[in-house]
Every structure is written in structure tokens, then in C-alpha cells.
């Protein structure tokens, strides 16, 4: 017997998210019975791959995990290994790493704001459709992204999977003249990014608030990116090496990505909303001023407004990049000396889409005995499901197509990076008759 009050939404392949994923939502009489965000993440391939390799290889190997945020993987890896070896990288090399990371934030956020998320708010299927009606906006996004790419190219050695980062510093530090060539495009991009903040702040956002436990890094003086303590809106304040004492990963049968939870509490959220809510006062001057202009609430609880936060973070990253390039003085050496020895180290940095944690245990000759990598998407996965559980009941009467689109948009709020480099654009919706399990296309 058919149950017309039951509605099942299956998005078998999610478009405009990185990697492969699927969403299953089951509703009955306006209540959400089940939400499953299924992630076909290659199960811990890289953690196993790293075991037996030399720790010095970790930054380059882990950079291959994601085509969008290779710098984040490099940074968390290199900091964790340096912690294990007792290596401290100081200025100006520290600033160079910060600059490289800014480049990645700029390009990743520009991609998401303009190409992935803005079409949702403007009623387009995708950026290609949006480009025909809003060519200037898309070209602006491309120009901002290119400015970020240029930083990664000059500091990281190449745009894709940068190769210049090493334990102790860099293989080669760029000359000040090389960095100065970036200034003009960065200044142009900054002006465009300022306009972008006001543009996206004017979008119409679904009326929806939710306040999960926000988790982000916090640095005494900087908006979080490369360094800081792990803090939360519910009182966590720890060094990254204590991460495993407060957070744990749980296996969920329907997905091969692990869910990360706060021990004793459960789901939490990392990423732009968490960073902003926990560190707003640490934004660079222009970015902070724009935030005060367009975001009046003290805590941003509406995840659909993440597009505004990302735009503000683009401004911040551009301001910081310009400042660091203007102040850059070439280091006498491109890296600091160190010796390999046994040890254990962990580090967390802020990937564009959230906290990225790495931990390594090394043998006497620097061989990796054990590696643990917790990407932001597995940390956010449970919270994304909670968003959908809270969002859908009041919208249950929407036509299924609209509801499906809303689900996809809600997932895109968090820019999930589900695996790396493969996706399939197939979207299937089925109605399920629960009495006999029949699936009707």
C-alpha cells in the first residue's frame, strides 16, 4: 500500500560539491525520519599510504589528497612533523607560509562564492548559466581566483599541488621582486572582493537559524589560518596535540567517511561560520569594517550566510597578502636546520572549509609509523545532517524539486570536500512506498 505522506529525497550524486557523495532524506507527515549524507570517500587510503614513508615526504604526499586545498594539507602535515621534530619556523618564512595559505583561501573561496554558491541564490542551475546573464560577476570571480592562484604559483612553486613547502621552511624562498609582481593584481582583486561582500550580503537568505558547537583555531592576534589553539563556543580551549583527548571519530554504517564528534557532546561545526563567530575581532581592518557593515548579529547562526563570511574572508586574505608582500624581506636561508628523530606531533590549521587535523608518530630515522588525518568535511558531516533535520520540517510542503534543491543548497553552505578529484553529475529522485519497499523512479 502506498503511503502518500511519506516523501523520500535521494540525491544520488551531489553536484557542485567536491568528490562523490549522495544524500538520502526520508520524511513522514512533515517530520524528518532519517537523514544520511553518504560519502564515498576513499577510506583512509592516504593514512595507510603514509605509513612507512619518510616524514619529510608527508607535505607533498598529503597535498595530493585534495585538488582544491593542497596547501591546507601541506600546512597541517608540515606543522605536525615539525612539532614532532621540535622545529620552529620563524619570520619571514612563517609569513611566507601564511601568504601561501592566503592564496589558497582566495582561490578556494572565490570558486565557491561565485561558481558554486551564488547560482543558488540567483536562480541558476550552475555557473555556466549564470555566466550568460551575469558575465561581469563571473569574470570578477575568475579574476579574484586568479590572484589567489598567482600567490600559490609564486610561493608554492606551481598552482596545482604546490611543491615548494618542506619541513623546516621552503625549498626556495621567493625574491621580494617576484612577490611584488603580485601586488597590482591583488590590489585589483581586493577592490572587487569588497564589492563582492556587499553584493552577496544583498542576497535573499532562507529564514533559518541553528547554533551548533562552533570549533575553530584561535590565535592571540591573527584571524585563524596557520596556527592557534583549538577553541569552541562551548568552552574547549586546547592545544592541537590534545585534539584526540576531546574529539573522537565514529564509524557510521551508511558512509565510509568517519564522523568526528566532541566527546560526550556530539556534532560540531568548523569552517567559515565557526571561524568568524569565534574570531571576528581578529579580521584585518577592511574585512572587519565590512563585517560590521553587513553583519549585524553578534553570532551568525544562519548557515546560508556562509557565502557572506567567505566573501569577507577573501577580503581578509587579500589584505593580509598585500601586507605581507609589502613587508617581505628575503630570509638568509630558505629553511631552518633540523635532525630526524623519533617523536609524535600533531597540528591543526584552517583549510578554507574548516579545521584540518594531522597527527604523525615517527621512528628514530623519521619513518612514519602512524598517521591520522581528520579533514573538515568529516568533522562537519554530522552537523550538515543536523542542518537538514532542522531545515526541512517547516518546508515539507514544498514541491519535491524545490525541496531537493534546498537540500543541495544547504549542503553547499558548508562547501564539503568529500574526497578528491572525482564526481559524477547524476541526480535521481525516487518515491518510496514504505509498505513493500518498492522504489518508483
Amino acid at each position, binding site marked *: 500500500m502506498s503511503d502518500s505522506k511519506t516523501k523520500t529525497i535521494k540525491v544520488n550524486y551531489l553536484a557542485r560539491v567536491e568528490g562523490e557523495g549522495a544524500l538520502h532524506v526520508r520524511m513522514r507527515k512533515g517530520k524528518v525520519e532519517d537523514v544520511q549524507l553518504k560519502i564515498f570517500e576513499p577510506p583512509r587510503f592516504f593514512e595507510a599510504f603514509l605509513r612507512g614513508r619518510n616524514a619529510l615526504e608527508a607535505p607533498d604526499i598529503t597535498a595530493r589528497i585534495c585538488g582544491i586545498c593542497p596547501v591546507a594539507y601541506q600546512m597541517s602535515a608540515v606543522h605536525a612533523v615539525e612539532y614532532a621534530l621540535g622545529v620552529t619556523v620563524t619570520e619571514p618564512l612563517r609569513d611566507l607560509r601564511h601568504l601561501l595559505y592566503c592564496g589558497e583561501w582566495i582561490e578556494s573561496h572565490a570558486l565557491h562564492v561565485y561558481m558554486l554558491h551564488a547560482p543558488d541564490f540567483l536562480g541558476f542551475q550552475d*555557473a555556466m548559466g549564470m555566466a550568460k546573464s551575469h558575465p561581469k560577476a563571473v569574470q570578477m570571480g575568475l579574476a579574484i581566483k586568479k590572484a589567489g592562484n598567482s600567490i600559490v604559483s609564486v610561493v608554492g612553486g606551481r598552482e596545482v599541488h604546490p611543491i615548494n613547502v618542506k619541513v623546516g621552511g621552503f625549498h626556495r624562498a621567493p625574491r621580494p621582486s617576484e612577490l611584488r609582481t603580485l601586488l597590482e593584481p591583488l590590489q585589483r582583486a581586493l577592490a572587487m572582493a569588497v564589492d563582492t561582500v556587499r553584493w552577496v550580503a544583498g542576497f535573499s537568505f532562507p529564514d533559518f537559524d541553528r547554533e551548533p558547537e562552533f570549533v575553530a583555531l584561535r590565535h592571540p592576534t591573527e584571524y585563524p589560518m596557520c596556527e592557534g589553539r583549538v577553541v569552541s563556543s562551548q568552552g574547549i580551549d586546547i592545544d592541537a596535540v590534545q585534539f584526540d583527548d576531546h574529539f573522537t571519530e565514529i564509524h557510521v554504517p551508511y558512509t565510509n567517511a568517519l564522523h568526528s564528534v566532541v566527546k560526550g557532546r556530539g556534532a560540531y561545526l568548523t569552517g567559515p561560520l565557526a571561524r568568524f563567530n569565534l574570531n571576528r575581532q581578529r579580521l584585518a581592518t577592511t574585512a572587519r569594517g565590512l563585517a560590521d557593515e553587513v553583519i549585524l548579529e553578534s553570532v551568525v547562526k544562519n548557515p546560508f550566510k556562509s557565502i557572506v563570511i567567505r566573501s569577507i574572508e577573501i577580503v581578509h586574505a587579500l589584505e593580509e597578502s598585500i601586507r605581507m608582500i609589502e613587508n617581505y624581506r628575503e630570509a638568509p636561508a630558505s629553511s631552518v636546520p633540523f635532525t630526524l628523530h623519533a617523536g609524535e606531533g600533531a597540528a591543526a590549521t584552517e583549510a578554507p572549509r574548516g579545521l584540518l587535523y594531522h597527527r604523525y608518530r615517527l621512528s628514530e630515522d623519521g619513518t612514519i609509523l602512524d598517521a591520522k588525518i581528520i579533514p573538515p568535511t568529516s568533522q562537519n558531516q554530522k552537523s550538515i545532517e543536523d542542518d537538514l533535520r532542522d531545515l526541512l520540517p517547516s518546508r515539507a510542503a514544498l514541491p519535491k524539486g524545490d525541496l531537493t534543491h534546498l537540500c543541495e543548497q544547504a549542503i553547499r553552505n558548508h562547501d564539503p570536500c568529500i574526497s578528491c578529484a572525482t564526481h559524477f553529475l547524476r541526480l535521481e529522485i525516487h518515491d518510496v512506498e514504505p509498505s513493500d519497499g518498492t522504489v518508483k523512479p
Partner: protein
Amino acid sequence: MNESTEAAETLVIGIGNDFRGDDAAGLVAARALRSRSLSGCTSFEVCESNGSAFSLMDLWRGRGRVVVIDALDVGSRPGGDILILDGLQGPLPQDAFVLSTHAFGLKEAIDLSRTFSGLPKELIIVGIVGKQFAMGDPLSAGLAHVVQRMVSEWPRCLEVYVPAMNHVQGSKSLKENGNHA
């Protein structure tokens, strides 16, 4: 245009992911072609890409002839088939090109470049049909052999098949025409 000028204008872009089985085919082909170019067998510019639409757009903007080599996932085709597509003529198959970055890959690069008048004058896509794309898989031996054969016949394979290019349904397969192992 003489032969050397034409060769210098050709850009070959190999797309792929070294960690994803047969998806590495485009990269392996590009590296082999670069070696041939460096050894003087032939002369053209070669680069590698992860397939991000934006890097592709930058690479081919203002170029004359561009050849993109990428792995294809076409379930109905046997592994090792090589399909030659005209990137400027009509839509590409939506799902066939495996590699994509945030859903912005080759197809999107062509669409956006068309909108912004940034396409090269000629865009040839060499699609190598693969079968295993799981993270950690190696490039299959059969496909490695196909790539090796294709490179050894370069650029004759393009010269032979370019005139027959059309959309994916009718795309020429080198295997069908007895031109690869």
C-alpha cells in the same frame, strides 16, 4: 604555415590524477610526449593539469591548436578505446570525463571559455577509455600499453582521425579502426 610553426603552436595538455588508477592516463601520455619532444622526435609544448576548469581556461586562452588528453569513463566502451572529440563542436558527454574539481572540469572549461570568447582556434580532445578509477589503483597494464602505443604514433594518430571528429556517439575509436594494440 610551415610544419615547424604549426608544431610550435600546438599545446598538449595531459589531464589526470596519479593516485586514481586509469585516471592517470592523460598525465602518463603527457610525460611520454614531453620526453619525445625533448629528444627531438617531434616538437610541441606539453603541460600537465588536474583538470580544473580555470587552469584549463588559462592554459588554452589565445592558443591556436590545443590537444587535451584525458581518461574517459564510458561504461559501454571497452577499456583502451581512444575517442577523438572536437571540443569546439557541440556539448561533451556530461559524465564521461572522470576528473573534475568541484564539478568544474573540462566540459565547464569549454562552456565558460565559449561564453567569454576564450576558446583556442582548434580543440582536440583525446579520450582514453579507462575502467578502474578507485583511489590507490595503479594505471592498468592494458591502458599503459595503449598510451605507449598512442605516443609512439604521435602525431600521426591525430592526423588520421581529426577529419573524422564528431560528437561522442559517433566518435572515432582507434581500436575500431585497428590503430592501436
